[in-house]
């Protein structure tokens, strides 16, 4: 059986992706699992003449607060902790409500999906911070900063949750709605 294709962009046509929810859950679970080492292990390894220190995501936020950089601390906290956690909950809620054929709050759920899709990529901020700091602060013995293993698992966690959100077919939210005009 051939696949129906769009006359305009030649993309494969499919009314609904029947495996959408399976993919959503698979990517989501992978993302949640990787988020754990991302928070336990160090994100940055800092070596200076006097000390050697490691900092986790949350540790980095606390450091910024100590330096009175409250705005930046808030950005990192929101991007690296609140957004990923919020995303996990939001995607799980959307998937569950579709499974239960819920007909309530359809507009709000659709909005929620748009927000999740739009905001997820911004979690990558911290990975780029680590990349820039590690490249910039390389002064042999005086000071050097190197990426920790958490940077890798955090980046993967963000990528996997982006895949999860993209696998969600937002049209499923509306499928339970048979009364709309």
């Amino acid at each position, binding site marked *: 059986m051939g696949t129906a294709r769009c006359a*305009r*962009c*030649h*993309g494969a046509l499919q009314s609904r992706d029947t495996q959408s929810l399976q993919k959503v859950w698979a990517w989501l679970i992978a993302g949640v699992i990787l988020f754990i080492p991302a928070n336990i292990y160090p994100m940055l390894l800092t070596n200076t003449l006097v000390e050697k220190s490691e900092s986790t995501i949350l540790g*980095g936020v606390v*450091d*910024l607060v100590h*330096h009175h*950089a409250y705005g*930046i601390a808030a*950005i*990192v906290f929101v991007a690296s902790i609140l957004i990923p956690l919020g995303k996990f909950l939001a995607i799980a809620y959307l998937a569950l409500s579709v499974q239960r054929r819920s007909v309530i709050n359809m*507009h709000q759920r*659709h909005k929620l999906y*748009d927000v999740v*899709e739009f905001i*997820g*990529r*911004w979690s*990558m*901020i*911290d*990975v*780029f*911070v*680590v*990349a*820039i*700091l*590690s*490249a*910039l*602060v*390389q*002064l*042999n013995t*005086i*000071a050097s900063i*190197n*990426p920790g*293993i958490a*940077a*890798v698992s955090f*980046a993967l966690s963000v*990528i996997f949750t*982006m895949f999860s959100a*993209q696998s969600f077919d*937002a*049209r499923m*939210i*509306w499928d339970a709605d048979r009364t*709309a005009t």
Partner: protein
Amino acid sequence: MALPPHQDLIACPHCDTLHVAAELPDGARAACQRCHAVLQTAQPGALISVVSLAVAAIVLMVVAVSFPFMDLDVSGNHNATSVFNAIAAFNTGLAVPLAVAVALFIVVLPVTRLLAIIYAISPLLRGAPPRPLARKAFGLAESLRPWAMAEIFMVGVTVALIKVADLATVTLGPAFWAFAALVVITVFKDQLMNRYAIWEALDKATPAD
């Protein structure tokens, strides 16, 4: 009830509600009745602006990767860094795939999108038929949109600057400003780019066979 011909219908990309496409007056926009997603916009001259902004962005990207990005100075010890250094920062063991990912997110995918958009749209400006792979190219540019993260990289750079500010003196290089301009231009370009309008333009320019 008979539906109008399918060329005149728009299915909302978000909720699948079918609408009949309308000829919009200049500057107007049409939204989905059910979920209010924007379906159509009519901006005269949008295509030429999109292509020129894309060309400008490519020039800036060349500058951004070839010049020093920032220079760090701690009591006479210098370290200049470029965008490539930032990518190569993840050069040990398990982190190597991350270097590839960062390279994709901040340089390769943004450039791929820009080239694909220029390839797909520029012949239309001269009134010529679209290039053979124009549809594929534009589809690619659209699907890569969430993965091109130049603007997120700039926010990351700002956070990094504040973190080292009291440890050392940082001088911003030409590449920093080029990258910043690139981000602003990309945002403008994506604002101007309406999917539906561009597909329509590609359709109109394709000779019937």
